[in-house]
């Protein structure tokens, strides 16, 4: 149930990401927050699989080379998962830092192929900054959803 639901949420969020218009010259990226959530919530294999899937989905919905984002989301999730064992996932600053980290490494990987310039640097900063807001909200919404699901059971 949870894996299927997670994948459905992943696809829905990816679809939402391609539907959102650009704001202040950059496009909001929602997938890094999801990857951070999965890394701090799911077991290791689940977190890694989810992150790689999210990366592939992201790459499929861009004009960039396929597999680049998956390549960085996977290790990023694994890294966060390892750290997560020693930290409390409920702490918002930790959620913020992990979301920003995933957005940053995803962005750097994209820039490595698309090229670094001032415009991309601005977008990288904005996407990373936006993840600081999106990630705690994602944690709150998904944790609330999980709690409701448990209550229903």
């Amino acid at each position, binding site marked *: 149930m949870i894996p299927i639901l997670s994948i459905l949420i992943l696809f829905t969020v990816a679809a939402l990401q*391609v539907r959102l218009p650009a704001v202040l010259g950059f496009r909001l*990226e929602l*997938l890094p927050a999801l990857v951070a959530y999965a890394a701090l919530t799911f077991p290791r294999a689940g977190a890694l699989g989810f992150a790689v899937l999210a990366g592939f989905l*992201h790459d499929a*919905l*861009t*004009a*960039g080379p396929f*597999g680049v984002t998956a390549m960085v989301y996977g290790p990023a999730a694994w890294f966060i998962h390892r750290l997560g064992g020693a930290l409390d996932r409920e702490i918002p600053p930790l959620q913020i830092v992990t979301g920003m980290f995933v957005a940053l490494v995803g962005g750097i990987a994209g820039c490595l192929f698309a090229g670094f310039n001032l415009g991309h640097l601005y*977008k990288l900063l904005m996407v990373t900054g936006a993840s600081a807001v999106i990630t705690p909200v994602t944690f709150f919404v998904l944790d609330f959803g999980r709690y409701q699901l448990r209550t229903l059971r």
Partner: protein
Amino acid sequence: MWFGLNRKTWIVVGLLVAGWVIFLSQPTAVATRLRMLFVQLATPFVRLGDYIPSVKSRRALDQQNRQLRADNQALRQQLNNLVEAGRENLRLQRLLDLKQNHPLRTVTARVIGRDAGNWWQSLQLDRGRHAGLRENLAVLNADGLIGKTVTVSAGESRILLLTDPNCKVSAIVQETREPGVVAGLTDTRLVMTFVHRQAKIPIGAKVISSGLGGVFPKGVLIGTVTKAEINAGTGMYQDLEIQPAVDFRRLEEVLVVLE
């Protein structure tokens, strides 16, 4: 030992990552197939967005039925729909005129999604291989040139916009016939490079596609020149800054040129 892993494991991980980079960054058949699979899986979710406005309307109508001013609200909604239908009709009429004026075999497609990332400028269309689309086809609308198709699956395709630096078009200045290459500069600006340094280019001159290269048809408007200056790096040619004729933020329907 670092981060709980020994040296050998790190080497294996490093080799795997390097292999991944080399393998997946190349346009191999496996990577293309994988991409198509993910696109096909994601497209139904992307298309779901088309239904969100109608769901909202229904919900709004249900609420309106419970209110005293239901009739008034419904009529307003109908008026809005008519205005929207009128605008869509105008846009499609312009596309139809363009289709009739240009001796090109084209397919009309609707924009269903943007690029998921911030590093490339692309759009997703609702037409794919089934409609006759393939890679490297020109995409335009009544205003001018938009870009070219880069990945095409059975029922959808992705186009690289002119504003992406990787989308290069052979172009000429319409008045002076001065040739050059147009590519993306920023999200809303283009640059025409390799223009002869002695050429006198008037500000406001129109830039059109030259037809060279075999992807873009000749004579399609790209934009107007807003600035001309000698290339700062080499000093050997001029760079022209171009205001695109197309508003890339507001694309809804496009024409894909098949021949």
